[in-house]
C-alpha cells in the first residue's frame, strides 16, 4: 500500500470563485491516515464549499487535491466515491421514497457488491445504529435526526471507505441520536482506521471528537492545531468576533 509515503489527503493552495466572490482563497491542508480532523469557522467561511470541491461536485479554479498521492480534482463524484471518499450533506439527502434498507444498499451495489452481501452488511450496520426496527420504513417517514444518522451510516457501506467528510452531522440532532453518531465515528475510526473530516459549529463536540482542528475564515485558513492552541489564537477570537 503506498499510503505510508503519501498523506491520505493533500490540498495545495485551492481556489474557488463564484462570480466575483472568492469562496476559497489559497487553502492548503494535509490529513494523515486515521485522524479525525475538525473544520470550523464562522458562517460563510467556505467550509461546505471545501467538501464540495474535494468530492468533485464543484470544479476547482486552481490548486490541486491529492488522495494517496494521485490527483482526484476534476474527477466525477461517483468515481471519487469509488476511490473510498464518502460525504454527508448539511441537510440530509436520503432517498425519500426508498426504505431505510434500500438507502443503505445503494452505495454497496454501486461498488459491485452482490445483493446478498450488501443486504447482510446493511442489516449489520443498521443493527449497530439502532435503526433496525425502521428497516422497511420509507426514509421520508423518519425524523430529521434519524435521517442524519441513516445518511452517516449509509456511507460506511462503501467497502473501501478511507476518508469520510461529515458536513454538520450534529446540527439540531436529538441528544440520543448524537450519542449514537459519536459512538459510530469513534468505533469506525479506531477499529477500521477510517479518517474523518468533520465540519460543525458545535465546538464542544468538535473538541471532544477531533485530534486536529483547522479554522477557516472568509475562505482562508487562519489557524491549525489542537483545540486548545486554536482557541487561544487571537486571530480565531477576532474571526468569531466578526472582525
Amino acid at each position, binding site marked *: 500500500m503506498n499510503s505510508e509515503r503519501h498523506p491520505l489527503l493533500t490540498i495545495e493552495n485551492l481556489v474557488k470563485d463564484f462570480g466575483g466572490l472568492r469562496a476559497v482563497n489559497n487553502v492548503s491542508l494535509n490529513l494523515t491516515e486515521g485522524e479525525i480532523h475538525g473544520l470550523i469557522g464562522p458562517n460563510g467561511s467556505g467550509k461546505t464549499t471545501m467538501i464540495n470541491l474535494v468530492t468533485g461536485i464543484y470544479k476547482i479554479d486552481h490548486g490541486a487535491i491529492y488522495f494517496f498521492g494521485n490527483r482526484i480534482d476534476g474527477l466525477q463524484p461517483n468515481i471519487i466515491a469509488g476511490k473510498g471518499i464518502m460525504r454527508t450533506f448539511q*441537510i440530509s439527502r436520503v432517498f425519500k421514497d426508498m426504505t431505510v434498507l434500500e438507502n443503505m444498499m445503494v452505495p454497496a451495489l454501486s461498488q459491485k457488491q452482490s445483493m446478498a452481501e450488501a443486504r447482510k452488511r446493511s442489516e449489520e450496520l443498521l443493527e449497530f445504529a439502532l435503526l433496525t426496527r425502521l428497516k422497511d420504513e420509507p426514509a421520508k417517514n423518519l*425524523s430529521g435526526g434519524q435521517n442524519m444518522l441513516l445518511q452517516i451510516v449509509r456511507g460506511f457501506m462503501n467497502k473501501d471507505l478511507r476518508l469520510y467528510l461529515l458536513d454538520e452531522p450534529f446540527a439540531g440532532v436529538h441528544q440520543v441520536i448524537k450519542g449514537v453518531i459519536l459512538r459510530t465515528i469513534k468505533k469506525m475510526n479506531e477499529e477500521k482506521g477510517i479518517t474523518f473530516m468533520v465540519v460543525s459549529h458545535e*465546538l464542544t463536540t468538535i*473538541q471532544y471528537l477531533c485530534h486536529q482542528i483547522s479554522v477557516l475564515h472568509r475562505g482562508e485558513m487562519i489557524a491549525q492545531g489542537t*483545540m486548545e492552541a486554536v482557541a487561544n489564537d487571537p486571530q480565531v477570537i477576532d474571526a468569531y468576533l466578526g472582525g
Partner: protein
Amino acid sequence: MISAMLKVEQVTSGYVEGIDILTDVSLEIGDGMITGMIGPNGAGKSTLLKVIFAFLNPRQGKILFEGQEIQNYLPSQLKWMGMSYVPQGFSIFPQLTVEDNLLLGAWIFRRNKKLLEQRLKEVYEFFPLLRERRKEKATYLSGGFLRMLCIGKEIITKPKLLLIDEPSEGLAPKIVKEIYNFLLKVKEQGTTIFLVDQNIMKALEVSDYMYLLEMGQIKQRGPKEEFEEHIREIIRDSLISR
C-alpha cells in the same frame, strides 16, 4: 422594567420535523431600545427572526406583540401592525429602480399619496445618498448602498419594531460604521430594534440589552455593561466551553 413591546415565550422551532433549531427560547424586547442578540453561527439567530415575522410557525410557544398573540399571523398582517424585518442577504428587487424599491416597501399605504410622499422624503433625508441615485436600477449599487436600501425599504412604513439580521455581513469596515450609526438614528426616531448579529463588537456598541444564544438556547442575558467587560472570555469559553 420598561414595558416589553415583544415577548417570546418557550418557542421551539425548526425547518425539518424532528430537528429543533430553537429549544424553549424566551426573551423580551424593551420599548424604544436596541436589543442585540449574538451567538456563533448556526445557533438559530436567523431562525428566531423568521419565527417572529411568521416566515416559519413555531412548534410550541407563543409570541406576543404589544400583548397580542401573533404566532399564527401572516407576514402581511404583521406589517400592518407596525413590524418590519430586514432579512439576511438582500431583500431588494435588483431590476427595479431605487425609488421603486422604496415605494414597494410602502406597499401597505400605497393608496394614501400624501403619506407616501412624506415618508419617501423622510427616507431620503435619512439616506441622502439614495436620493441622488433614486432613478438607477438597484443592481448597479454597491454592497453598502444595497444594505441602506434594504433598511430604507423597511423603515419607510415607520414601524414600531424593526427586526434586523446581520446588517454588517459582507461590507467593508468603513460602511459598517455608517450602517450602525443609521441604526442609532432609527432608534432616536422612536423605533424599537431587535438586532441579530455575528459582529459582536459592533452589536455591543449599539445595543442597550444583550442576549447570547448558543445551540438554540439562551445562554446569557443582561444589560450591555455586563457583557462588555469580559467579552473576550465569553468567546473563548464558547470556543472551548468546558
